[in-house]
């Protein structure tokens, strides 16, 4: 039995959690009331809430088209991340000449912001003929270094004897990765799925650069376009924000247990 009561900690955590949720609550409240955000004093509870701003947005923009585009790009990114990062993570658990330098290169590349490499990325994508395409939008996020290290940490926690036994039986490396190791590292897969999905879902700058056709725009681009066309509709704008946020929130809430486990696996040894 603990010597100290738990309630002060729970109270502090509850207050911190409530503070974190206030912006989400405010966006949701404004989407239901259309209240001007500069109103003073602000009303904490929604007055006369309704969902008609969502109806306005639904009919004002091709929401389904944007949603479809975002889903296609996110699915490509998620699949590519799981496959490519698993292979890269597995390679980094093996011994090979230049392994230290490779890891150092990866870590140093993490410090380069994407904005710095956006011009060469654009030129490469253009040379490949992938401008204004789903694959082109997904390409820069197809493999991310953070997720490679998540897989690497998870793979290192698997007993080496298991992999050695498979090797002795003549199992090829790709089958070791996809048939033996991956089924044992579901939290790492969930972490990869969630992180790559959210990064892809929220990606704005890269799609803005390479998408030229309005029919190929994703939800963040649609949001920016909506904001530029319709200026004086606070409620509709916030309703659109909620519609963009909800899919990511659902994915995160559904897989948060695996997500937390995946992020913390490898944090402790033994």
């Amino acid at each position, binding site marked *: 039995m603990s010597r100290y009561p738990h309630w002060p900690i729970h109270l502090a955590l509850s207050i911190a959690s409530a503070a974190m949720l206030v912006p989400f609550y405010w966006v949701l409240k404004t989407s239901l009331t259309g209240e001007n955000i500069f109103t003073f004093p602000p009303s904490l509870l929604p007055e006369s809430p*309704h*969902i008609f701003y969502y*109806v306005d947005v639904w009919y*004002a923009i091709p929401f389904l088209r944007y949603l479809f585009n975002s889903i296609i790009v996110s699915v490509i990114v998620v699949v590519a991340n799981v496959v490519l990062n698993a292979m890269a993570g597995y390679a980094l658990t093996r011994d090979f000449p230049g392994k230290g330098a490779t890891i150092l290169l990866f870590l140093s590349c993490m410090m380069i912001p994407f904005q710095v490499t956006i011009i060469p990325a654009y030129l490469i994508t253009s040379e490949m003929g992938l401008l204004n395409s789903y694959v082109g939008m997904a390409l820069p996020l197809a493999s991310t270094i953070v997720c490679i290290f998540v897989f690497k940490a998870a793979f290192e926690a698997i007993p080496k004897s298991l992999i050695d036994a498979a090797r002795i039986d003549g199992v090829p490396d790709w089958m070791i990765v996809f048939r033996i190791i991956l089924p044992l590292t579901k939290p790492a897969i969930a972490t990869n799925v969630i992180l790559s999905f959210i990064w892809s879902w929220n990606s704005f700058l890269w799609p803005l650069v390479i998408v030229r056709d309005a029919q190929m725009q994703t939800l963040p681009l649609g949001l920016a376009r909506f904001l530029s066309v319709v200026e004086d509709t606070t409620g509709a704008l916030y309703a659109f924000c909620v519609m963009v946020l909800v899919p990511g929130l659902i994915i995160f809430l*559904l897989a948060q247990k695996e997500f937390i486990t995946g992020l913390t696996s490898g944090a402790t040894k033994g």
Partner: protein
Amino acid sequence: MGWLKNRFVYTFGGIALAILAWNVWVVLNDDGIIRGEVVSASGAPVEGATVKLTERTLLVARPRGETLTDADGRFTFTGHDLHHLFLEASKEGAGHAGPLEVRLYFKGENVNLHTPLRLDGTT
């Protein structure tokens, strides 16, 4: 079938069912019929009042039709494809009513207005 019993299937399956039910509801109620009544300042039905229907979007408002009330003061618009509209009524000598804002959950939703358009009696 055990693999189907998880929170992902329940969540997305529930969402799919809700979407299906909503679309069935829309199909059954999207004939685009608006019914209402125009009454005088004293509450008596007004025959021959002109009712104007105006579409309202996030960007523009544009007239979409007009009709006359019958002997019971009732009016009907059919085949509209709007989700946000205004109704106005007027009659020479009986006054003006509205605009009454009507917001619908989907385009072409059938609606019976419970509040009559009440002419203000001004000439």
